[in-house]
């Protein structure tokens, strides 16, 4: 089953990256959600898959059964899920605020103006005109 999981993860990654390359900021966020799912699956596959044997110690026992599921990656995934959730919530709220301020979720517009400028990240068009005069 690991093999199928690997291919499935690859597919999810591909879809996630395709979404991230979209101009729509919301699609980017969708891509991010998928990507974090994919990362969790990588962690999960790293612990190898075990069918129907959760990592519990039965009542009365002191040791888990043989061939119990690998608990460590599960714990890591739990941590990663929660962290991704926090980051994602913040990103979502930020996109929302950015939309309120900027009025667009078009990533190319979020990059300032679409024409080339040296301070493209902040849309300081004026920079372009003076730069040669300064030299």
């Amino acid at each position: 089953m690991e093999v199928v999981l690997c291919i499935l993860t690859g597919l999810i990654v591909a879809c996630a990256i395709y979404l991230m390359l979209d101009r729509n900021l919301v699609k980017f966020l969708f891509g991010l959600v998928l990507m974090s799912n994919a990362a969790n699956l990588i962690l999960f596959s790293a612990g190898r898959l075990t069918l129907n044997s959760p990592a519990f110690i039965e009542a009365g026992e002191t040791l888990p059964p043989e061939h119990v599921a690998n608990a460590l990656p599960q714990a890591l995934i739990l941590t990663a899920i929660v962290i991704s959730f926090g980051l994602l919530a913040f990103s979502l709220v930020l996109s929302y605020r950015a939309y309120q301020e900027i009025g667009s979720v078009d990533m190319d517009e979020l990059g300032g103006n679409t024409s080339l400028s040296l301070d493209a990240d902040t849309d300081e068009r004026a920079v372009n005109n003076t730069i040669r005069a300064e030299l």
Partner: protein
Amino acid sequence: MDDWLILIPVLLPLSTAILAAVLPKSRAVQAGLSVAATALLVFVSLAIFAKAAGGTILTVSLGSWPAPFGIVMVADLLSAVMLCITSIIALATAVYAIADIDRERLHFGFHSFLQFLLCGICGAFLTGDLFNLYVWFEVMLISSFALLSLGGGKRQLYGTIKYIALNLISTLLLLSAIGLLYGMTGHLNLASLAVAVPQVENANLVTATAILFLIAFGIKAAVFPLFFWLPASYHMPPVTVSAIFAGLLTKVGVYALYRVFSLLFTHDVEWTHTILLWVAGLTMVTGVLGAAVQQNIRRILSFHIISQIGYMIMGLALFTKAAILGGVFYTIHHIIVKANLFFIGGIVERRTGNPFVRNMGGLYRVAPWFSLLFLVPALSLAGIPPLSGFWAKFLVIRAGLDEQAWLIVAAALFTGLMTIYSMLKIWNEAFWKRNPERPDASLFDAPPHGSHGAPPLSRAAQFCLLAPCALLAALTIWIGLWPQPFLAVADQIADQLMNNEAYVQAVLHSRQSPLVETMR
């Protein structure tokens, strides 16, 4: 032997952050708390350094679980030094923030976020566990998101979105890389990974995973071609935030690269470190060229962070003891100088009311001492002796020449020249040129009108802005004039990084761990 001392750099900022979040949001309380906590942090870091400098590697096994099973916090000399620098920059930042941060940001928890950031940075420096490193990176990351977006208008949000997007990608790549490495070795503890990684049969797979780490940490460290988030965002938030980001955040990435590429991935140096070398060269050159054409003072400085990162990576990529020594020394020097330049740039920017050097001027006429204060870090960055940057550059270039890596040395020299050019461009424009609008405005005269600059500053506030600059400049001069103690420390660090047995021993043999027996 467990050493509770090395927990303090994590727990102290964390507790301070919680206190800052629940205590009243008055300037006196918040700033007082922040300054007191960072000052204490300086002392603690120095204490840790004093212990680590004795050659012992301090460890704490959290939860009393023995080394490869529980999480270990480790302070070798590299971590201790990074902690010291971090705490000094943090103190400077906390003081500078008193005058720079407005009431609104204060009310919404600026100091809380600052302390959370510190907690994350210190945690990243101290942890001896790969997954735990990821967690501290996230703490650092989310606090930096908060600081970056806090109270921001439209343009600040532009920058934050790019910062967040690219850093989240880095995070996810890091998580994937950790997953892959765990899947090959079954370990997360750095020391046991150092033992287990060379035993992986498919060594090429380890190399490929190393590349994944390179990209994940490379984004954090802002190397070519992954640096875009840095110039896109660093010039937007308040100067205090830019300064601590500039000083510390990318350097955590550099630290992580140093850690994994000296401890874990040394089996195929020919491939991995050659890639690193190319990355280093391209990072230097693109960064410095980017800086050469900028007009926004903080953006010039931002691009220079990138070019300087190139030198640090060069030290790692050459992977000789001399080179690592140079890289470590470079990092120490750079953190101090770069944070200082941002602080000073902030004062300059505040006077003009906008960040463009063409609108500045006349500072040399009205404020000669302040001009000198700028020249110290600026010339240090440019590598002019006898300031700290010269020794840093000298060491790295000497290491390059020793290895006969002519191309990278040429790139480094060219970058040095262009750094001089852009530092002096700032000098020419902001200091020497006649101020186009108000030639006689003194240093703390508020900008005329229509700008969102701050109101005129009280004497105390002026002191808060200048004192951190003076402190850091004094450090720069000290390192420049008497680099001996710093070099000795960097030398010891290079020793530790090149021979990781001591690290592995300190972590795994601190208790009789069954793992070590099985690994023999």
